[in-house]
């Protein structure tokens, strides 16, 4: 049977690092899934940029709970999409990026942040570009040693 869900690239940090980039992403899939499992030296969201675009072309809407309260907020004309949340304890964030290779529509994403000692969070993101996504850069803090990043591709048809 042909595979419809395939690993594209994976990285496990051998030392603390402030950013990770997946580049030369093939356009042969329909959607992307990014799994980040690890910790930050200080808790925070994972800033995400596509194709090295540092312009004010990103927006996102978020809801999160801290155990004591619930917050929803938005960010527009931003320089990144802040997806999910990684804390100083083992935590994970899952980012789904939809129809990433098309050259007609702006690109949308959903992030789920899972830091049991800090936040449970969901984000929706928008990158106002019709360019196909060929690279993803993740930053926003210092990822600790042993943090893993895996990018999967999903095909709608084979």
């Amino acid at each position, binding site marked *: *049977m*042909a*595979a*419809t*869900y*395939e*690993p594209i690239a*994976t990285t496990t940090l051998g030392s603390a690092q402030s950013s990770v980039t997946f580049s030369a992403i093939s356009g042969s899939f329909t959607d992307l899934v990014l*799994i980040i*499992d*690890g910790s930050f030296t200080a808790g925070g969201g994972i800033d995400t940029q596509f194709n090295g675009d540092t312009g004010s072309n990103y927006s996102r809407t978020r*809801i*999160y*709970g*801290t*155990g*004591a*309260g*619930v917050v929803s907020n938005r960010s527009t004309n931003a320089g990144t999409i802040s997806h999910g949340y990684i804390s100083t*304890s*083992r*935590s*994970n964030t*899952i980012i789904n990026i939809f129809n990433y290779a098309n050259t007609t529509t702006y690109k949308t994403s959903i992030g*789920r*942040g*899972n*830091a*049991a*000692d*800090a*936040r*449970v*969070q*969901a984000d929706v993101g928008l990158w106002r570009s019709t360019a196909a996504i060929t690279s993803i850069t993740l930053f926003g803090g210092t990822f600790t040693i*042993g943090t*893993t990043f*895996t990018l*999967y591709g999903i095909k709608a048809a084979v």
Partner: protein
Amino acid sequence: MATTYGAIATVTVGSGGAANIEFTSIPQTYTDLKLVYSLRNARNLDTDSISITINTVGVGTSLSLRGNGSIVVSFTETKLNAGRVVSATATANTFNSGEIYFPNYASNVNNKSYSSDTVTENNNTQAFQQLDAVLYPSTEPITNLTIFGDNGNLVEYSTATLYGIKNS
């Protein structure tokens, strides 16, 4: 091409119900696990939750976000949350929908952090959507998973499938 996303096992509850659904001897050949479930509880209370055990242990840190259509709350618990379950008072033939994602489940170095999303939509007066962030504080690889209602048995046709995902 090798399978990178494969079904490990499916369990469906038979007539008479069951206290839980259990997956044992989980192979260590994948990178991540995804547990997908459709469950209904036998108890007449529509605010019942579901939980899991990992390697037969049910203690950890859960941080949850739950909405019921009118309000949203966030809370912490010391069990391994897996959302809410459709109860016996809900519309007939409705079951919850849920999935849990376990990254790096076979690691013997790191604690296990997982993500859980569930809904109990049943076209009745109340339904829940719940997101859980959970930390299971053990570096042991996950070899056994059990999912169960916190109160009452799972009814017939409740089902769960465990998938394995490889990163190479």
